[in-house]
């Protein structure tokens, strides 16, 4: 227990130090790309739990992200000054606790949305479930677009910028650890069993319905956290949460390898960095980007890593000879 606390403290310290070094030593443009990479890593890791591990097909991830983004932003703008006495002008240390609360609130609201969307997964599978999640994502987006208190079509202005690389990296670590621990456990194996053969899993006494809903809830929680980090980082408008955003995250996990956590991290990083790296090609950028994706999927249809993981042991073995 003590070891864990120390490890946790060390991680927080390391993440904070990395952030401090990079914020001064790195061009703001690259810093920004790193933050966006981190957000996409959280999104990809969490979606992987539903699509890669449990074998369901959700294309509503942007919807969960939107729920997290808007609830946390509303909390920060309307709740925090009143309850915490923290205003947008307060320093980062005073704002840390309310920001953490806002992020967790965003995650929990998204998790509740995940629960609601997970319910039809009891009866629907495959394409039909995909359509339900798609519909859900769009309903959320359009609903928010029409709420004037959060800016509606003008976008939500006046949210203090609280997110920095330290927060994003910290949440990346938490997301990774939680999902990795689940996958390695008895519960994770139940999720894998559902992906492999739902009927057989059921016959072995796996409560398939409960597990499917649970995977939606956990996945949506982290999507909501990513949304909260996003809304406290950049201009918040529902246009960021269209169906294209969901597709983008799916492409990340397919590219990295469905079911592989290291694959999701790799896929998210590559797909965030690649469009930026291709900026020299200006107008042809999107064509090259798409062509690269097509070539990669032809060459490795199972994704870069397939089901495999890059682990420490694997790295050591590669390094040994």
């Amino acid at each position, binding site marked *: 227990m003590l070891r864990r606390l120390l490890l946790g403290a060390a991680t927080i310290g390391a993440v904070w130090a990395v952030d401090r070094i990079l914020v001064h030593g790195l061009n703001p443009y690259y810093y920004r790309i790193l933050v966006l990479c981190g957000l996409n890593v959280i999104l990809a890791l969490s979606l992987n739990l539903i699509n890669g591990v449990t074998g369901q097909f959700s294309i509503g991830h942007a919807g969960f992200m939107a729920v997290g983004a808007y609830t946390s932003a509303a909390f920060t703008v309307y709740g925090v000054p009143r309850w915490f006495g923290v205003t947008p002008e307060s320093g980062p240390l005073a704002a840390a606790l309310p920001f953490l609360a806002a992020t967790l609130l965003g995650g929990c609201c998204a998790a509740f949305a995940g629960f609601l969307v997970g319910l039809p997964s009891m009866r629907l599978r495959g394409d039909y479930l995909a359509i339900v999640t798609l519909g859900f994502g769009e309903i959320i987006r359009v609903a928010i677009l029409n709420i004037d208190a959060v800016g509606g079509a003008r976008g939500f202005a006046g949210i203090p910028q609280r997110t920095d690389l330290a927060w994003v990296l910290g949440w990346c670590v938490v997301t990774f650890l939680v999902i990795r*621990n689940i996958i390695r*456990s008895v519960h994770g194996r139940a999720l894998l069993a559902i992906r492999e*053969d739902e009927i057989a899993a059921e016959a072995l006494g796996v409560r398939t319905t409960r597990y499917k809903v649970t995977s939606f809830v956990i996945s949506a929680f982290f999507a909501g956290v990513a949304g909260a980090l996003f809304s406290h980082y950049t201009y918040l408008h529902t246009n960021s949460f269209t169906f294209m955003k969901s597709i983008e995250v799916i492409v990340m996990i397919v590219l990295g390898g469905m079911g592989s956590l290291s694959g999701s991290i790799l896929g998210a990083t590559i797909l965030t960095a690649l469009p930026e790296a291709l900026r020299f090609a200006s107008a042809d950028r999107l064509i090259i980007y798409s062509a690269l994706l097509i070539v990669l999927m032809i060459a490795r249809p199972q994704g870069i890593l397939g089901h495999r993981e890059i682990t420490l042991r694997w790295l050591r073995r590669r390094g040994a000879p």
Partner: protein
Amino acid sequence: MSGGAGEPLLSLRRVTCAFGGLKAVADLDLELPRGTLAGLIGPNGAGKTTVFNLIMGVYRPTSGSILLEARPIEGRVTCTIARRGVARTFQNPRLFSELTCLENVQIASHLHCGATLGDSVLDTARSRKEERLILERSRAFLEEFRLTRYAGEKARNLPYGDQRRLEIARALATEPTLLLLDEPAAGMNPQESEALMHLIHDVRSRYRLTVLLIEHDMKVVMGICERITVLDYGVKIAEGTPDAIRSDRRVIEAYLGEDA
């Protein structure tokens, strides 16, 4: 038979299952005393697998009741029935083909695991202990079924006969009291089915199981079953010991036609 005398482990009472106008199973009465090794036979389309699906809760009987340890289970969902101690194998093995043999058995060993999702997320001492137990148990099952050398191999890469053995090992890992085997010897050569007969026989006594099996291989059925029930067009036409069944007129008619 060993175990509690008196009430049977499983009993089907006037169970009917109709799909539209077709009665796949009609007014079936079936009793399995504890510890029996019973066979369910009949020509193709006689409704044997439907009986399994009724017991497992895949289908809901149109009428009649199914009692497991004197408690009704009809209308319950499959996983509840599995949790009450019924395990099955499938006509075509339904392994988790992309997972390893060890993982296949580990998944089945979850029923008596006390670690909650929270334990797993926080990787608590309890979670670690349970994981260790599951791993040990699963390894023991593989050992017992002589599958240890395939532990790290994906299930789909196994030879067919071993896949069937793995499926039985996986079913047993749920610690059932009733085991349903759907054509365990299908696709096996005579040596393999001979070995399988011994395996089923052994397993039954070692785990104090009650076994109901569907089988087309008469050598297997007659060799190990103590009681046999014969279905034809969803109706029970005979029931009794292998010897009685072998000489039953209606059974011979059902299998070979009326003029035989």
